[in-house]
């Protein structure tokens, strides 16, 4: 077999014995995993296994829910994210959501919103950021003449790329994607996957997906989560995507990815 990854990638995010509770209910159970830098890590698993909850821990979005409590560590580079101010953390760890959620603003304002919130006022610099972000998100050619149109006027796939551009505009290091293509048609989905592949050069990407083929196509590493009888999510198996999808070690992974359960 041909193996292109001779170099073991560096760890970007280290998760150690991470537990998460909604009130008394334990949603994540002792997750320990290293997320490699500048790679695409896909998280798959049946509904309710805590995949989304898990990546929402990386930018502490879970904390918007009042009853959430966590244990264990999540270390970004060398800092524990729970010791970083969430506002600062979210600048470093961007997020793209399941449904495209452009703001009801113009395309330009959608992208300029983040940088502006971080203190950039100079219009010329903002213009540069907007163009650069849109180019990175492979949307520039489609919207360069309509930057003053509403972001909501775009098609679903374009809206999602706009949201990716918006996340890129604040120059994060990690981009979390929570089923970013589940609301899109197949062609738009492939475009997003293509884009993700290009983005990994500069960013560490963690993507949750329901679509096994998507994980197989678009990721370098795969984590398989499952739900225990207590309904707590736990990590079953992790490894190179090529290994997980051709030769998983765990029987549960095997059954899940070959469509026998979940």
């Amino acid at each position, binding site marked *: 077999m041909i193996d292109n990854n001779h170099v073991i990638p560096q760890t970007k995010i280290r998760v150690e014995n991470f537990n998460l509770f909604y009130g008394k209910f334990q949603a994540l159970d002792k997750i320990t995993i290293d997320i490699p830098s500048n790679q695409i890590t896909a998280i798959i698993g049946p509904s309710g296994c805590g995949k989304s909850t898990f990546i929402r821990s990386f930018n502490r979005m879970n904390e918007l829910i009042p009853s959430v409590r966590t244990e264990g560590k999540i270390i970004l580079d060398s800092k524990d994210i729970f010791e970083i101010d969430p506002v600062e953390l979210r600048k470093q760890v961007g997020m793209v959501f399941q449904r495209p959620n452009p703001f009801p603003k113009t395309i330009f304002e959608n992208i300029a919103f983040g940088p502006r919130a971080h203190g950039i006022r100079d219009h010329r610099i903002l213009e540069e950021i907007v163009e650069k972000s849109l180019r990175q998100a492979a949307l520039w050619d489609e919207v360069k003449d309509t930057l003053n149109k509403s972001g909501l006027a775009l098609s679903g796939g374009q809206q999602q790329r706009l949201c990716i551009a918006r996340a890129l505009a604040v120059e994060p290091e990690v981009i979390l994607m929570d089923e970013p293509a589940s609301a899109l048609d197949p062609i738009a989905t492939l475009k997003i996957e293509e884009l993700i592949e290009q983005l990994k050069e500069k960013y560490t990407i963690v993507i949750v997906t329901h679509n*096994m083929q998507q994980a197989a196509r678009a990721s370098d590493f795969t984590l398989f989560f499952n739900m225990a009888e207590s309904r707590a999510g736990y990590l079953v198996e992790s490894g190179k995507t090529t290994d997980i*999808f*051709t*030769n*998983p070690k765990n029987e549960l992974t*095997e059954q899940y*990815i070959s*469509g026998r*359960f979940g």
Partner: protein
Amino acid sequence: MARELFERKIKQIQDEILLLGSMVEQATLDSVTSFKDRDIQTAKALIEDDQNINDKRFAIENAILILLATQQPLAHDLRLLAAMLLVANELERMGDYAKGIANNTIRLGISDLPIPYRDIEKMGELAVSMLHRSLSAFISEDISQALAIPHEDDEVDALFNKCYRTIVNGMIANPATIDDASLLLWVVHNLERLADRVVNICERTVFIKSGEMMEMDGSEDEVEG
């Protein structure tokens, strides 16, 4: 249990592979018998029947491609279908060996060459027996069988070397028979190669079960006939 239709279709393809296997076994045994009996009639029929083997192989290949395209198999299913694709190909090539033997039967005509019939027959029987058991092991994913069968290839190789010696010695003793005797060489060579390909089937069996791609013993590097 999800994916029942998919599993039924895989089962159908497995049955087809067993059927193709038994066609090849029969063709090999018949080719050896007709060679021994100098039965040109049967030899001609075997050459024509090879088309059936080829057709069956294409049918299997097509069915597998359709499953790959429509069911997006992964993990074990993916390995199984990929292996079946290769095994169908191996069986078709084995069919060609039988056809090659039949061709030589016709070309040899009624030459009165001394021929090591007993050994050739033994080779044929051994190779076919290996093939038969390797296919059952393949379908039932029986790793211990798949690991054991390739060792029998040594026996086939020994018989091949013995026949080879006999035939070459005959050539040296009577150079006028070289043309005809070289046809004999092809016959034993084909049987030896058939046994080598059985080893490939065993390798695939291990691959399906464990995901490991391992090279088993077998005189792979010889030229094909």
